[in-house]
Protein backbone atom coordinates (compact mmCIF):
# COMPACT_ATOMS: atom_id res chain seq x y z
CA UNK A 1 0.00 0.00 0.00
CA UNK A 2 3.00 2.27 -0.23
CA UNK A 3 2.65 4.01 -3.60
CA UNK A 4 6.24 5.21 -3.49
CA UNK A 5 7.63 1.75 -2.99
CA UNK A 6 5.45 0.12 -5.60
CA UNK A 7 6.44 2.66 -8.26
CA UNK A 8 10.08 1.97 -7.37
CA UNK A 9 9.47 -1.70 -7.85
CA UNK A 10 7.77 -1.01 -11.14
CA UNK A 11 10.74 0.98 -12.32
CA UNK A 12 13.08 -1.87 -11.44
CA UNK A 13 10.88 -4.39 -13.16
CA UNK A 14 11.01 -2.33 -16.33
CA UNK A 15 14.78 -2.29 -16.68
CA UNK A 16 15.45 -5.84 -17.93
CA UNK A 17 12.83 -5.39 -20.63
CA UNK A 18 14.28 -2.00 -21.50
CA UNK A 19 17.74 -3.50 -21.91
CA UNK A 20 16.35 -6.31 -24.02
CA UNK A 21 14.64 -3.86 -26.33
CA UNK A 22 17.79 -1.78 -26.50
CA UNK A 23 19.63 -4.90 -27.62
CA UNK A 24 17.05 -5.68 -30.27
CA UNK A 25 17.19 -2.10 -31.48
CA UNK A 26 20.98 -2.42 -31.63
CA UNK A 27 20.64 -5.45 -33.88
CA UNK A 28 18.22 -3.53 -36.09
CA UNK A 29 20.30 -0.40 -36.39
CA UNK A 30 23.78 -1.96 -36.12
CA UNK A 31 24.10 -2.97 -39.77
CA UNK A 32 23.34 0.60 -40.85
CA UNK A 33 25.99 1.95 -38.58
CA UNK A 34 28.49 -0.51 -40.00
CA UNK A 35 27.41 0.48 -43.51
CA UNK A 36 27.90 4.19 -42.88
CA UNK A 37 31.34 3.59 -41.37
CA UNK A 38 32.32 1.28 -44.22
CA UNK A 39 31.21 3.85 -46.77
CA UNK A 40 33.74 6.31 -45.39
CA UNK A 41 36.67 3.89 -45.22
CA UNK A 42 39.31 2.52 -47.54
CA UNK A 43 38.80 -0.93 -49.05
CA UNK A 44 41.51 -2.37 -46.86
CA UNK A 45 39.98 -1.07 -43.63
CA UNK A 46 36.45 -2.30 -44.15
CA UNK A 47 37.12 -5.82 -42.93
CA UNK A 48 39.48 -4.83 -40.12
CA UNK A 49 39.05 -6.46 -36.75
CA UNK A 50 38.35 -4.97 -34.32
CA UNK A 51 36.11 -2.95 -36.63
CA UNK A 52 36.63 0.75 -37.05
CA UNK A 53 33.93 2.47 -35.06
CA UNK A 54 34.32 6.01 -36.32
CA UNK A 55 33.87 7.37 -39.84
CA UNK A 56 37.02 7.68 -41.94
CA UNK A 57 37.83 10.28 -44.54
CA UNK A 58 37.42 8.27 -47.74
CA UNK A 59 33.77 8.87 -48.57
CA UNK A 60 34.68 11.35 -51.29
CA UNK A 61 37.14 8.93 -52.90
CA UNK A 62 34.64 6.09 -52.75
CA UNK A 63 31.90 8.15 -54.35
CA UNK A 64 34.36 9.41 -56.93
CA UNK A 65 35.19 5.89 -58.04
CA UNK A 66 31.49 5.06 -58.03
CA UNK A 67 30.86 8.02 -60.31
CA UNK A 68 33.47 6.73 -62.77
CA UNK A 69 32.21 3.16 -62.57
CA UNK A 70 28.42 3.48 -62.76
CA UNK A 71 27.90 7.19 -63.44
CA UNK A 72 26.56 7.74 -59.95
CA UNK A 73 25.06 11.18 -60.61
CA UNK A 74 23.19 10.02 -63.65
CA UNK A 75 21.94 6.91 -61.89
CA UNK A 76 20.75 8.82 -58.82
CA UNK A 77 19.11 11.32 -61.18
CA UNK A 78 17.31 8.45 -62.93
CA UNK A 79 16.06 7.15 -59.59
CA UNK A 80 14.88 10.56 -58.46
CA UNK A 81 13.12 11.21 -61.75
CA UNK A 82 11.36 7.85 -61.82
CA UNK A 83 10.35 7.98 -58.15
CA UNK A 84 9.25 11.61 -58.37
CA UNK A 85 7.07 11.22 -61.47
CA UNK A 86 5.68 7.91 -60.29
CA UNK A 87 4.77 9.29 -56.87
CA UNK A 88 2.99 12.35 -58.23
CA UNK A 89 1.30 10.37 -61.01
CA UNK A 90 0.09 7.56 -58.77
CA UNK A 91 -1.10 10.08 -56.20
CA UNK A 92 -3.21 11.94 -58.79
CA UNK A 93 -4.62 8.73 -60.26
CA UNK A 94 -5.49 7.43 -56.79
CA UNK A 95 -6.99 10.71 -55.60
CA UNK A 96 -9.28 11.03 -58.61
CA UNK A 97 -10.36 7.39 -58.52
CA UNK A 98 -10.72 7.31 -54.75
CA UNK A 99 -12.90 10.42 -54.90
CA UNK A 100 -15.10 8.84 -57.56
CA UNK A 101 -15.47 5.60 -55.60
CA UNK A 102 -16.15 7.34 -52.30
CA UNK A 103 -18.44 10.17 -53.32
CA UNK A 104 -20.40 9.10 -56.40
CA UNK A 105 -23.01 6.45 -57.10
CA UNK A 106 -22.58 5.10 -60.60
CA UNK A 107 -23.12 1.97 -62.62
CA UNK A 108 -20.41 -0.65 -62.14
CA UNK A 109 -19.00 0.98 -59.03
CA UNK A 110 -18.81 -2.14 -56.88
CA UNK A 111 -17.62 -4.33 -59.73
CA UNK A 112 -14.83 -1.97 -60.79
CA UNK A 113 -13.63 -1.55 -57.24
CA UNK A 114 -13.63 -5.30 -56.64
CA UNK A 115 -11.75 -5.85 -59.90
CA UNK A 116 -9.12 -3.33 -58.89
CA UNK A 117 -8.64 -4.90 -55.48
CA UNK A 118 -8.58 -8.47 -56.77
CA UNK A 119 -5.26 -7.79 -58.51
CA UNK A 120 -3.64 -7.20 -55.12
CA UNK A 121 -3.31 -10.95 -54.70
CA UNK A 122 -1.71 -11.46 -58.10
CA UNK A 123 2.07 -11.72 -57.76
CA UNK A 124 3.94 -8.92 -59.44
CA UNK A 125 6.02 -11.46 -61.35
CA UNK A 126 2.99 -12.54 -63.39
CA UNK A 127 3.15 -9.22 -65.21
CA UNK A 128 6.89 -9.29 -65.95
CA UNK A 129 6.83 -11.14 -69.27
CA UNK A 130 3.72 -9.47 -70.75
CA UNK A 131 4.98 -6.02 -69.74
CA UNK A 132 8.35 -6.79 -71.28
CA UNK A 133 6.66 -7.88 -74.50
CA UNK A 134 4.43 -4.80 -74.47
CA UNK A 135 7.34 -2.42 -73.97
CA UNK A 136 9.33 -4.19 -76.69
CA UNK A 137 6.43 -3.83 -79.14
CA UNK A 138 5.98 -0.18 -78.24
CA UNK A 139 9.70 0.44 -78.60
CA UNK A 140 9.83 1.67 -75.02
CA UNK A 141 12.38 -0.74 -73.64
CA UNK A 142 15.22 1.05 -71.91
CA UNK A 143 13.25 4.29 -71.48
CA UNK A 144 11.91 6.14 -68.46
CA UNK A 145 8.36 5.56 -69.68
CA UNK A 146 8.82 1.80 -69.45
CA UNK A 147 9.62 2.09 -65.75
CA UNK A 148 7.18 4.84 -64.88
CA UNK A 149 3.96 3.85 -66.68
CA UNK A 150 3.24 0.51 -64.97
CA UNK A 151 3.66 2.19 -61.58
CA UNK A 152 0.92 4.76 -62.10
CA UNK A 153 -1.99 2.56 -61.13
CA UNK A 154 -1.46 1.38 -57.56
CA UNK A 155 -4.66 -0.40 -56.48
CA UNK A 156 -3.78 -0.13 -52.82
CA UNK A 157 -3.39 3.63 -53.14
CA UNK A 158 -6.84 3.88 -54.73
CA UNK A 159 -8.20 1.76 -51.92
CA UNK A 160 -6.60 3.93 -49.25
CA UNK A 161 -7.88 7.14 -50.84
CA UNK A 162 -11.38 5.73 -51.06
CA UNK A 163 -11.30 4.67 -47.42
CA UNK A 164 -10.18 8.06 -46.15
CA UNK A 165 -12.50 10.02 -48.42
CA UNK A 166 -15.54 8.05 -47.32
CA UNK A 167 -15.29 9.64 -43.90
CA UNK A 168 -15.20 13.14 -45.40
CA UNK A 169 -18.60 14.81 -44.78
CA UNK A 170 -20.65 15.34 -47.96
CA UNK A 171 -21.90 18.70 -46.64
CA UNK A 172 -18.43 20.12 -47.11
CA UNK A 173 -18.46 19.18 -50.78
CA UNK A 174 -22.05 20.28 -51.34
CA UNK A 175 -21.35 23.70 -49.87
CA UNK A 176 -18.67 24.24 -52.49
CA UNK A 177 -20.90 22.85 -55.26
CA UNK A 178 -23.73 25.22 -54.33
CA UNK A 179 -21.26 28.05 -54.73
CA UNK A 180 -20.89 26.85 -58.32
CA UNK A 181 -17.56 25.04 -58.15
CA UNK A 182 -16.90 22.27 -60.66
CA UNK A 183 -15.80 18.85 -59.39
CA UNK A 184 -12.10 19.43 -60.04
CA UNK A 185 -12.34 22.67 -58.15
CA UNK A 186 -14.09 20.98 -55.25
CA UNK A 187 -11.37 18.38 -55.28
CA UNK A 188 -8.54 20.88 -55.34
CA UNK A 189 -9.97 23.52 -52.99
CA UNK A 190 -11.83 21.38 -50.48
CA UNK A 191 -10.71 17.75 -50.59
CA UNK A 192 -6.97 18.17 -51.04
CA UNK A 193 -6.47 20.59 -48.12
CA UNK A 194 -8.48 18.39 -45.76
CA UNK A 195 -6.75 15.22 -46.94
CA UNK A 196 -3.23 16.63 -46.73
CA UNK A 197 -2.01 14.27 -43.96
CA UNK A 198 -3.29 11.18 -45.78
CA UNK A 199 -1.84 12.39 -49.07
CA UNK A 200 1.50 13.04 -47.38
CA UNK A 201 1.61 9.57 -45.85
CA UNK A 202 0.68 7.98 -49.15
CA UNK A 203 3.21 10.07 -51.04
CA UNK A 204 6.04 8.92 -48.78
CA UNK A 205 4.91 5.34 -49.09
CA UNK A 206 4.72 5.53 -52.88
CA UNK A 207 8.11 7.22 -53.08
CA UNK A 208 9.67 4.55 -50.91
CA UNK A 209 8.22 1.78 -53.04
CA UNK A 210 9.35 3.41 -56.25
CA UNK A 211 12.84 4.30 -55.01
CA UNK A 212 13.43 0.70 -53.96
CA UNK A 213 11.78 -1.18 -56.83
CA UNK A 214 14.09 -3.65 -58.49
CA UNK A 215 12.76 -6.54 -60.58
CA UNK A 216 10.89 -4.60 -63.23
CA UNK A 217 13.67 -2.02 -63.78
CA UNK A 218 16.13 -4.91 -63.91
CA UNK A 219 14.11 -6.44 -66.73
CA UNK A 220 13.17 -3.29 -68.61
CA UNK A 221 16.49 -1.44 -68.55
CA UNK A 222 19.42 -2.47 -70.70
CA UNK A 223 21.94 0.35 -70.90
CA UNK A 224 23.88 1.39 -67.79
CA UNK A 225 22.96 4.99 -68.57
CA UNK A 226 19.33 4.25 -67.82
CA UNK A 227 19.87 2.19 -64.66
CA UNK A 228 18.23 3.19 -61.42
CA UNK A 229 20.28 3.05 -58.24
CA UNK A 230 19.21 -0.44 -57.07
CA UNK A 231 19.84 -1.92 -60.52
CA UNK A 232 23.25 -0.26 -60.75
CA UNK A 233 24.19 -1.50 -57.28
CA UNK A 234 23.10 -5.04 -58.00
CA UNK A 235 25.04 -5.02 -61.26
CA UNK A 236 28.14 -3.69 -59.55
CA UNK A 237 27.83 -6.16 -56.72
CA UNK A 238 27.20 -9.12 -59.01
CA UNK A 239 30.24 -8.33 -61.13
CA UNK A 240 32.82 -10.75 -59.75
CA UNK A 241 35.78 -8.88 -61.21
CA UNK A 242 34.96 -5.78 -59.18
CA UNK A 243 36.31 -5.91 -55.68
CA UNK A 244 35.88 -2.26 -54.95
CA UNK A 245 34.08 -2.68 -51.63
CA UNK A 246 34.42 0.94 -50.61
CA UNK A 247 32.66 2.11 -53.76
CA UNK A 248 29.88 -0.48 -53.53
CA UNK A 249 29.20 0.22 -49.88
CA UNK A 250 29.24 3.99 -50.30
CA UNK A 251 26.62 3.57 -53.03
CA UNK A 252 24.58 1.29 -50.80
CA UNK A 253 24.72 3.81 -47.98
CA UNK A 254 23.76 6.53 -50.41
CA UNK A 255 20.69 4.57 -51.50
CA UNK A 256 19.44 4.13 -47.95
CA UNK A 257 20.31 7.45 -46.34
CA UNK A 258 17.74 9.66 -48.09
CA UNK A 259 15.04 7.23 -47.00
CA UNK A 260 16.39 7.13 -43.45
CA UNK A 261 16.44 10.91 -43.28
CA UNK A 262 12.91 11.14 -44.66
CA UNK A 263 11.79 8.51 -42.20
CA UNK A 264 13.33 10.18 -39.16
CA UNK A 265 11.97 13.54 -40.23
CA UNK A 266 8.44 12.38 -41.00
CA UNK A 267 8.11 9.25 -38.88
CA UNK A 268 4.51 9.90 -37.97
CA UNK A 269 3.35 10.09 -41.58
CA UNK A 270 5.71 7.28 -42.52
CA UNK A 271 4.31 4.83 -40.05
CA UNK A 272 0.72 5.77 -40.80
CA UNK A 273 1.48 5.27 -44.50
CA UNK A 274 2.94 1.83 -43.95
CA UNK A 275 0.16 0.91 -41.55
CA UNK A 276 -2.31 2.00 -44.18
CA UNK A 277 -0.52 -0.42 -46.46
CA UNK A 278 -0.86 -2.99 -43.74
CA UNK A 279 -4.61 -2.80 -43.57
CA UNK A 280 -5.08 -3.25 -47.27
CA UNK A 281 -5.90 -6.92 -46.88
Amino acid sequence: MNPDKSSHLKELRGWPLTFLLAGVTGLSVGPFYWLVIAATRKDTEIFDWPPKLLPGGDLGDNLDRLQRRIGLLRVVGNSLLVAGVQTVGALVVALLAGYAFAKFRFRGRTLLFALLLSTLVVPEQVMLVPLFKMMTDLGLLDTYQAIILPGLCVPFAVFLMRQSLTSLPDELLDAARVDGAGELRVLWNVVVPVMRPVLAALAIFLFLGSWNQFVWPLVALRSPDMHTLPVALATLHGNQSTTDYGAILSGTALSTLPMMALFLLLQRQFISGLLAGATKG
Partner: protein
Amino acid sequence: MTAAAEPAAPSVPLAEEARRTHRSARWRRTAVPYLLLAPALITFGVFKAYPILDSLLLSFTTGSGAATRDAGLANYRRLLDDPLFWTALRNTAEILVVQVPLMLGLALLMAAGINSVLVRWRAVWRLGVFMPAVTGLVATGVMFAFLLNTEHGAVNWLLDAVGLPAVDWLGRPFWARMSVVLVLTWHYTGYNAVIYLAGLQGIPKELYEAAMVDGAGPVRRFTAITVPALRPVLLFTVVLSTIGTLQLFDEPYVLTGGGPDNATLTVSMYLYQNGFRYFDFGYASAVAYALTLLVSVLGAVQMRLMGERGT
Protein backbone atom coordinates in the same frame (compact mmCIF):
# COMPACT_ATOMS: atom_id res chain seq x y z
CA MET B 1 -18.82 29.26 -65.09
CA THR B 2 -19.12 26.40 -67.53
CA ALA B 3 -19.91 25.82 -71.17
CA ALA B 4 -23.54 25.06 -70.30
CA ALA B 5 -24.39 28.73 -69.91
CA GLU B 6 -23.09 29.82 -73.30
CA PRO B 7 -25.51 28.28 -75.78
CA ALA B 8 -28.32 30.14 -74.05
CA ALA B 9 -28.56 32.67 -76.87
CA PRO B 10 -31.40 35.26 -76.68
CA SER B 11 -33.43 33.37 -79.32
CA VAL B 12 -33.92 30.36 -76.99
CA PRO B 13 -37.02 30.57 -74.75
CA LEU B 14 -36.40 30.58 -71.03
CA ALA B 15 -38.03 27.20 -70.25
CA GLU B 16 -35.95 25.57 -72.95
CA GLU B 17 -32.83 27.05 -71.44
CA ALA B 18 -33.72 25.79 -67.99
CA ARG B 19 -34.34 22.30 -69.32
CA ARG B 20 -31.05 22.31 -71.14
CA THR B 21 -29.06 23.37 -68.08
CA HIS B 22 -30.87 20.73 -66.08
CA ARG B 23 -30.06 18.02 -68.63
CA SER B 24 -26.44 19.06 -68.83
CA ALA B 25 -26.21 19.07 -65.05
CA ARG B 26 -27.51 15.52 -64.97
CA TRP B 27 -25.19 14.47 -67.75
CA ARG B 28 -22.37 16.01 -65.81
CA ARG B 29 -23.31 14.17 -62.69
CA THR B 30 -23.36 10.80 -64.41
CA ALA B 31 -20.24 11.41 -66.48
CA VAL B 32 -18.12 12.93 -63.77
CA PRO B 33 -17.34 9.72 -61.86
CA TYR B 34 -16.23 8.00 -65.06
CA LEU B 35 -14.07 10.95 -66.01
CA LEU B 36 -12.50 10.90 -62.57
CA LEU B 37 -11.92 7.18 -62.91
CA ALA B 38 -10.54 7.35 -66.43
CA PRO B 39 -6.84 7.67 -65.55
CA ALA B 40 -7.06 4.80 -63.09
CA LEU B 41 -9.09 2.57 -65.42
CA ILE B 42 -6.82 3.18 -68.39
CA THR B 43 -3.57 2.58 -66.53
CA PHE B 44 -5.12 -0.35 -64.72
CA GLY B 45 -6.42 -1.94 -67.90
CA VAL B 46 -3.22 -1.50 -69.88
CA PHE B 47 -0.61 -2.23 -67.23
CA LYS B 48 -2.38 -4.65 -64.88
CA ALA B 49 -5.47 -6.37 -66.28
CA TYR B 50 -4.11 -6.91 -69.77
CA PRO B 51 -0.73 -8.31 -68.64
CA ILE B 52 -2.45 -10.68 -66.22
CA LEU B 53 -4.60 -12.11 -69.00
CA ASP B 54 -1.80 -12.05 -71.54
CA SER B 55 0.38 -14.04 -69.17
CA LEU B 56 -2.30 -16.73 -68.95
CA LEU B 57 -2.54 -16.95 -72.75
CA LEU B 58 1.25 -16.98 -73.09
CA SER B 59 1.49 -19.92 -70.73
CA PHE B 60 -0.19 -22.03 -73.42
CA THR B 61 2.30 -21.08 -76.12
CA THR B 62 5.88 -21.87 -76.99
CA GLY B 63 8.58 -20.13 -79.02
CA SER B 64 8.84 -16.37 -79.34
CA GLY B 65 8.12 -13.48 -81.70
CA ALA B 66 6.77 -14.59 -85.06
CA ALA B 67 7.58 -18.20 -84.23
CA THR B 68 5.16 -18.30 -81.29
CA ARG B 69 2.81 -21.24 -81.56
CA ASP B 70 0.17 -22.98 -79.56
CA ALA B 71 1.50 -25.47 -77.06
CA GLY B 72 -1.60 -26.52 -75.22
CA LEU B 73 -0.72 -27.79 -71.77
CA ALA B 74 2.87 -28.67 -72.70
CA ASN B 75 4.39 -25.97 -70.46
CA TYR B 76 2.41 -27.13 -67.46
CA ARG B 77 3.28 -30.77 -68.12
CA ARG B 78 6.93 -29.79 -68.36
CA LEU B 79 6.61 -27.95 -65.07
CA LEU B 80 5.48 -31.09 -63.27
CA ASP B 81 8.54 -33.02 -64.50
CA ASP B 82 11.04 -30.23 -64.00
CA PRO B 83 13.40 -31.04 -61.10
CA LEU B 84 14.67 -27.47 -60.96
CA PHE B 85 11.14 -26.14 -60.51
CA TRP B 86 10.61 -28.52 -57.60
CA THR B 87 13.94 -27.50 -56.11
CA ALA B 88 12.88 -23.88 -56.30
CA LEU B 89 9.55 -24.71 -54.75
CA ARG B 90 11.17 -26.70 -51.94
CA ASN B 91 13.65 -23.91 -51.21
CA THR B 92 10.86 -21.36 -51.10
CA ALA B 93 8.77 -23.60 -48.85
CA GLU B 94 11.66 -24.23 -46.47
CA ILE B 95 12.41 -20.53 -46.15
CA LEU B 96 8.70 -19.83 -45.65
CA VAL B 97 8.16 -22.43 -42.95
CA VAL B 98 11.14 -21.28 -40.90
CA GLN B 99 10.95 -17.57 -41.52
CA VAL B 100 7.31 -16.59 -41.15
CA PRO B 101 6.65 -18.12 -37.69
CA LEU B 102 10.06 -16.98 -36.43
CA MET B 103 9.53 -13.43 -37.59
CA LEU B 104 5.92 -13.07 -36.46
CA GLY B 105 6.66 -14.62 -33.07
CA LEU B 106 9.51 -12.21 -32.53
CA ALA B 107 7.39 -9.32 -33.76
CA LEU B 108 4.62 -10.14 -31.29
CA LEU B 109 7.08 -10.29 -28.38
CA MET B 110 8.67 -7.07 -29.54
CA ALA B 111 5.30 -5.33 -29.76
CA ALA B 112 4.29 -6.55 -26.30
CA GLY B 113 7.62 -5.23 -24.99
CA ILE B 114 7.30 -1.83 -26.58
CA ASN B 115 3.69 -1.60 -25.43
CA SER B 116 4.55 -2.29 -21.79
CA VAL B 117 4.26 0.76 -19.56
CA LEU B 118 7.24 -0.51 -17.57
CA VAL B 119 9.65 0.04 -20.44
CA ARG B 120 11.49 3.33 -20.72
CA TRP B 121 12.12 5.33 -23.89
CA ARG B 122 9.56 3.31 -25.83
CA ALA B 123 9.46 5.78 -28.73
CA VAL B 124 13.19 5.25 -29.35
CA TRP B 125 12.89 1.47 -29.56
CA ARG B 126 9.88 1.70 -31.79
CA LEU B 127 11.75 3.95 -34.16
CA GLY B 128 14.87 1.80 -34.09
CA VAL B 129 13.25 -1.54 -34.80
CA PHE B 130 11.18 -0.03 -37.58
CA MET B 131 14.13 1.45 -39.45
CA PRO B 132 15.09 -1.66 -41.43
CA ALA B 133 11.66 -1.64 -43.11
CA VAL B 134 12.67 1.53 -44.90
CA THR B 135 15.74 0.02 -46.52
CA GLY B 136 15.58 -1.20 -50.06
CA LEU B 137 15.95 -4.91 -50.65
CA VAL B 138 18.96 -4.51 -52.90
CA ALA B 139 20.73 -2.35 -50.33
CA THR B 140 19.86 -4.90 -47.65
CA GLY B 141 21.17 -7.72 -49.79
CA VAL B 142 24.47 -6.00 -50.55
CA MET B 143 24.93 -5.01 -46.91
CA PHE B 144 24.39 -8.52 -45.64
CA ALA B 145 26.51 -10.09 -48.36
CA PHE B 146 29.37 -8.29 -46.63
CA LEU B 147 28.25 -8.85 -43.06
CA LEU B 148 27.84 -12.57 -43.70
CA ASN B 149 31.16 -12.99 -45.49
CA THR B 150 32.76 -16.19 -44.19
CA GLU B 151 36.29 -14.97 -43.64
CA HIS B 152 35.90 -11.25 -42.97
CA GLY B 153 32.22 -10.72 -42.16
CA ALA B 154 31.15 -9.02 -38.95
CA VAL B 155 28.66 -11.77 -38.11
CA ASN B 156 31.34 -14.44 -37.95
CA TRP B 157 33.59 -12.11 -35.96
CA LEU B 158 30.78 -11.74 -33.46
CA LEU B 159 30.27 -15.49 -33.30
CA ASP B 160 33.98 -15.87 -32.72
CA ALA B 161 33.90 -13.28 -29.96
CA VAL B 162 31.38 -15.35 -28.00
CA GLY B 163 33.28 -18.58 -28.67
CA LEU B 164 31.13 -20.03 -31.43
CA PRO B 165 32.59 -21.52 -34.60
CA ALA B 166 32.47 -19.53 -37.83
CA VAL B 167 29.69 -20.40 -40.26
CA ASP B 168 30.10 -20.57 -44.02
CA TRP B 169 26.89 -18.55 -44.42
CA LEU B 170 26.72 -18.10 -48.15
CA GLY B 171 28.75 -21.12 -49.20
CA ARG B 172 26.72 -24.04 -47.82
CA PRO B 173 23.22 -24.84 -49.10
CA PHE B 174 21.55 -25.05 -45.69
CA TRP B 175 23.25 -21.97 -44.29
CA ALA B 176 22.59 -20.00 -47.46
CA ARG B 177 18.88 -20.58 -46.95
CA MET B 178 19.26 -19.60 -43.31
CA SER B 179 21.04 -16.44 -44.44
CA VAL B 180 17.99 -15.55 -46.49
CA VAL B 181 15.83 -16.25 -43.43
CA LEU B 182 18.08 -14.06 -41.31
CA VAL B 183 17.98 -11.18 -43.74
CA LEU B 184 14.21 -11.35 -44.17
CA THR B 185 13.75 -11.47 -40.41
CA TRP B 186 16.03 -8.49 -39.91
CA HIS B 187 14.16 -6.57 -42.57
CA TYR B 188 10.52 -7.14 -41.64
CA THR B 189 10.26 -8.02 -37.93
CA GLY B 190 10.08 -4.40 -36.78
CA TYR B 191 7.52 -3.59 -39.43
CA ASN B 192 5.25 -6.37 -38.22
CA ALA B 193 5.88 -5.35 -34.62
CA VAL B 194 4.61 -1.87 -35.36
CA ILE B 195 1.47 -3.33 -36.92
CA TYR B 196 0.94 -5.47 -33.82
CA LEU B 197 1.60 -2.47 -31.62
CA ALA B 198 -1.17 -0.56 -33.38
CA GLY B 199 -3.43 -3.56 -32.76
CA LEU B 200 -2.44 -3.79 -29.10
CA GLN B 201 -3.13 -0.15 -28.52
CA GLY B 202 -6.63 -0.60 -29.88
CA ILE B 203 -7.57 -3.04 -27.09
CA PRO B 204 -9.57 -1.27 -24.36
CA LYS B 205 -7.72 -1.24 -21.02
CA GLU B 206 -10.98 -1.95 -19.19
CA LEU B 207 -10.95 -5.49 -20.57
CA TYR B 208 -7.67 -6.20 -18.81
CA GLU B 209 -8.81 -4.53 -15.62
CA ALA B 210 -12.01 -6.55 -15.57
CA ALA B 211 -10.06 -9.77 -16.19
CA MET B 212 -7.67 -8.93 -13.34
CA VAL B 213 -10.61 -8.36 -11.01
CA ASP B 214 -11.84 -11.78 -12.05
CA GLY B 215 -8.46 -13.18 -11.06
CA ALA B 216 -7.04 -13.94 -14.52
CA GLY B 217 -3.23 -14.23 -14.58
CA PRO B 218 -0.98 -12.77 -17.30
CA VAL B 219 -1.06 -15.92 -19.45
CA ARG B 220 -4.82 -16.19 -19.27
CA ARG B 221 -5.17 -12.50 -20.06
CA PHE B 222 -2.93 -12.94 -23.10
CA THR B 223 -4.83 -15.94 -24.47
CA ALA B 224 -8.30 -14.70 -23.57
CA ILE B 225 -8.02 -11.03 -24.48
CA THR B 226 -4.90 -10.17 -26.46
CA VAL B 227 -4.89 -13.00 -29.00
CA PRO B 228 -8.59 -12.81 -29.93
CA ALA B 229 -8.40 -9.03 -30.23
CA LEU B 230 -5.36 -9.29 -32.46
CA ARG B 231 -6.74 -12.05 -34.64
CA PRO B 232 -7.53 -9.86 -37.67
CA VAL B 233 -4.10 -8.25 -37.47
CA LEU B 234 -2.41 -11.63 -37.02
CA LEU B 235 -4.31 -13.01 -39.99
CA PHE B 236 -3.27 -10.05 -42.06
CA THR B 237 0.43 -10.39 -41.25
CA VAL B 238 0.42 -14.16 -41.76
CA VAL B 239 -1.20 -13.88 -45.17
CA LEU B 240 0.94 -10.94 -46.24
CA SER B 241 4.20 -12.54 -45.10
CA THR B 242 3.29 -15.78 -46.79
CA ILE B 243 2.50 -14.05 -50.06
CA GLY B 244 5.66 -11.98 -49.79
CA THR B 245 7.89 -14.97 -49.12
CA LEU B 246 6.36 -16.99 -51.94
CA GLN B 247 7.32 -14.14 -54.27
CA LEU B 248 10.83 -13.89 -52.86
CA PHE B 249 13.29 -12.56 -55.42
CA ASP B 250 15.45 -9.55 -54.58
CA GLU B 251 17.23 -10.84 -51.48
CA PRO B 252 18.50 -14.17 -52.84
CA TYR B 253 19.23 -12.55 -56.21
CA VAL B 254 21.60 -10.09 -54.58
CA LEU B 255 22.78 -12.18 -51.65
CA THR B 256 23.53 -15.53 -53.25
CA GLY B 257 22.45 -15.33 -56.88
CA GLY B 258 20.40 -18.46 -56.17
CA GLY B 259 23.43 -20.51 -55.15
CA PRO B 260 25.23 -22.42 -53.89
CA ASP B 261 24.12 -25.24 -56.13
CA ASN B 262 20.61 -23.74 -56.53
CA ALA B 263 20.04 -23.94 -52.77
CA THR B 264 18.45 -20.50 -52.68
CA LEU B 265 16.82 -20.57 -56.08
CA THR B 266 13.24 -19.39 -55.53
CA VAL B 267 10.19 -19.79 -57.75
CA SER B 268 10.36 -16.12 -58.73
CA MET B 269 14.04 -16.40 -59.63
CA TYR B 270 13.33 -19.47 -61.72
CA LEU B 271 10.59 -17.53 -63.50
CA TYR B 272 13.03 -14.68 -64.14
CA GLN B 273 15.71 -17.06 -65.44
CA ASN B 274 13.35 -18.72 -67.88
CA GLY B 275 11.87 -15.46 -69.07
CA PHE B 276 14.87 -13.21 -69.29
CA ARG B 277 17.91 -15.43 -69.49
CA TYR B 278 16.50 -18.12 -71.81
CA PHE B 279 13.68 -15.94 -73.22
CA ASP B 280 11.25 -18.82 -72.90
CA PHE B 281 8.20 -16.62 -72.32
CA GLY B 282 5.69 -19.46 -72.49
CA TYR B 283 7.40 -21.49 -69.82
CA ALA B 284 8.08 -18.44 -67.64
CA SER B 285 4.37 -17.61 -67.81
CA ALA B 286 3.47 -21.12 -66.76
CA VAL B 287 5.77 -20.74 -63.74
CA ALA B 288 4.10 -17.37 -63.04
CA TYR B 289 0.65 -18.94 -63.05
CA ALA B 290 1.79 -21.84 -60.90
CA LEU B 291 2.99 -19.20 -58.44
CA THR B 292 -0.33 -17.35 -58.62
CA LEU B 293 -2.20 -20.56 -57.94
CA LEU B 294 0.04 -21.29 -54.97
CA VAL B 295 -0.36 -17.79 -53.55
CA SER B 296 -4.14 -17.82 -53.84
CA VAL B 297 -4.60 -21.34 -52.49
CA LEU B 298 -2.34 -20.76 -49.50
CA GLY B 299 -3.87 -17.35 -48.82
CA ALA B 300 -7.39 -18.77 -48.95
CA VAL B 301 -6.49 -21.69 -46.68
CA GLN B 302 -4.97 -19.37 -44.10
CA MET B 303 -7.96 -17.03 -44.14
CA ARG B 304 -10.22 -20.02 -43.72
CA LEU B 305 -8.27 -21.50 -40.85
CA MET B 306 -7.67 -18.32 -38.92
CA GLY B 307 -10.86 -16.54 -39.80
CA GLU B 308 -13.19 -19.30 -38.66
CA ARG B 309 -11.60 -20.45 -35.45
CA GLY B 310 -13.40 -19.03 -32.47
CA THR B 311 -15.52 -16.51 -34.30
